[in-house]
């Protein structure tokens, strides 16, 4: 945890922050477990897991001001989107492709997050395109003299596309209020980091004239701390930062993948021991924020919220086929 048992106070976090952060991590974890179960039952053809990344996501978004700042996440960021305002029902409406999926009304695959209301910019499948949108939005904020900060998230695989390079370069040149977060889980589907990234991601920051940091993405407070410093710098007009949060995904890349072809069971086990949620639970009890009973009741509450979300999403409808032709362009008024 790096800062001892009252690390969070030093970071300016209150108990209610800790509880809320923990709640979103739990919600994400249980949504994930439920979506896999639904997948096995044949009720969800496609699943993108988040487990393992919860701390990196919740910690980093916690540094932003919701309602004012803007987020360009990627498909892995379920915990982040929950913390930004998605409900479990929203997640499952997307999973099932129902008409009230807030991201796309059932048009996109699950985990293609987006919501104008929540300042989560619509995402697509092609990797890393959102990073340039983030740069454009950050430029616009600066141009309009709004003091919003933009955050964008991507995997270490995402750093390979030209879009990443362009956005880093542009943000560096214009000292944009933008924070780049790399959730480095060491694999892009099956491709190991060593075949993906020459050198190290965070070390590239200097070449773009911005500071780069590496942190433990399984530590929600460390993720928060690095993010907070970067967001503060950005808001103060001191420009962009790159933060690399090392983590691991517990499951296969998606339900279409089988990670046994490329990751040893030992390696997966090793990382499961570093479970960011277990780790934060230990912090919470050590810091006397919660006792075992408190932890347990938070778990129960989160589970039940997730179950409710599944139920509501289940009861909702598929989009009407007659709507398929709508919204290619603005409809004639």
């Amino acid at each position, binding site marked *: 945890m790096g800062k001892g048992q009252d690390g969070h106070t030093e970071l300016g976090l209150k108990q209610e922050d800790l509880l809320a952060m923990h709640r979103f991590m739990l919600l994400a974890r249980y949504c994930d477990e439920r979506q896999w179960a639904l997948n096995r039952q044949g009720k969800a053809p496609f699943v993108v897991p988040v487990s393992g990344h919860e701390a990196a996501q919740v910690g980093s978004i916690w540094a932003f001001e919701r309602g004012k700042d803007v987020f360009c996440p990627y498909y892995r960021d379920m915990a982040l989107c929950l913390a930004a305002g998605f409900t479990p029902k929203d997640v499952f409406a997307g999973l099932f492709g129902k008409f009230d999926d807030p991201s796309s009304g059932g048009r996109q695959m699950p985990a293609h997050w987006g919501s104008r209301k929540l300042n989560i910019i619509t995402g697509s499948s092609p990797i890393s395109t959102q*990073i340039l949108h983030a740069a454009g939005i950050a430029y616009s904020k600066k141009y309009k003299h709004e003091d919003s900060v933009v955050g964008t998230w991507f995997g270490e695989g995402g750093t390979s596309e030209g879009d990443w390079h362009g956005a880093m370069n542009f943000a560096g040149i214009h000292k944009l209020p933008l924070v780049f977060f790399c959730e480095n889980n060491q694999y892009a589907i099956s491709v190991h980091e060593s075949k993906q990234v020459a050198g190290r991601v965070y070390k590239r920051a200097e070449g773009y004239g911005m500071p780069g940091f590496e942190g433990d993405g399984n530590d929600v407070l460390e993720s928060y701390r690095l993010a907070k410093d970067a967001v503060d710098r950005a808001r103060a007009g001191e420009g962009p930062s790159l933060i690399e949060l090392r983590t691991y995904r517990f499951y296969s890349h998606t339900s279409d993948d089988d990670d046994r072809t490329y990751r040893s069971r030992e390696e997966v086990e090793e990382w499961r021991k570093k479970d960011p949620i277990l780790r934060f639970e230990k912090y919470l009890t050590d810091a006397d924020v919660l006792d075992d009973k408190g932890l347990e009741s938070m778990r129960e509450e989160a589970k039940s919220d997730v179950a409710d979300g599944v139920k509501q999403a289940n009861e909702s409808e598929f989009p009407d086929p007659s709507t398929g032709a709508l919204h290619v362009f603005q409809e004639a008024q």
Partner: protein
Amino acid sequence: MAEKTLIQAVHDTLQEEMQRDDRVIVLGEDVGARGGVFRATMGFLEEFGEERVLDTPLDECLIAGVAIGMALDGLRPVAEMQFADFIFPAFNQIVSEAARIRYRSNNDFNVPMVIRTPWGGGVHGALYHSQSIEAFFAHVPGIKVVAPSTPYDAKGMLIQALEDEDPVLYLEHKKTYRLIKGEVPDERYAVEFGVAEVRREGADLTCVSYGLMHHFCLEAAEKLAGEGIDVEVIDLRSIYPLDIDTVLESVGKTGKAMVVYEDNKFLGVGAEVAAQIAERALFDLDGPIVRIAGPHVPAMPYAPTLEGWFMPNPDKIEQEMRKLAGF
């Protein structure tokens, strides 16, 4: 009302739009101090400052992606691709992102951006400064593609593009930049997309084209008039949406259709025009649907001998018109 070249019309319109709406911002390579390599943004840096007249790094993917972000945040970016031939690094951002964002977000987000770019040949630009790119993008649902051929339309369609709530690819044929002059009203007006213009009426043959080729077709038609061959010449102006009704109406009258374009023939815009005629007006026809286009080679070569060989020109067009009229 003043007589202007096409490039002047673009320049002045953009300037006026920036004066009236500070959401309008231009970005691209050399749009600043240089005023654009074709001078479309000449003087803008001095007038609007470097935040609104943004010289970008040499990265078209960045230009498109950043413009999308600006549009998502409420600005009205006008992104310049220095030459149409260099738009391809931005293909993914334009096709996968700009064109799909409204649809994929179920109308939650939209991308009101304009991409301007000089296209077309006949300027000794060789393989990489002469290309036609309209067919690639007109094929993509979610983006509009327009190609004004007169200064009047250049103004009206640029204003329309800026008012559009969706992405517009606005193509400026670089050979027409200084070649084509015309009256441009001072007041603000929009030219609707998806409305073709019959610029010459005729009874014997319908000739459909756009851009520089449209002017060549008019020239050829004038010559044939002396021979008693009366060609109706249609300027599409907007490639998508395509005003097929105007074309069909004309074909219903003339019974003969040709499409002239500078791009290579295979899957060029003429293919779609011909296919729609064949689908909807087959029995109006009393001659084959003729396409005059560039040969199937990767854009036009540099040597004057080869460039001449590549480009459709008024003579070639005139011959084909005569042939079809006599069919």
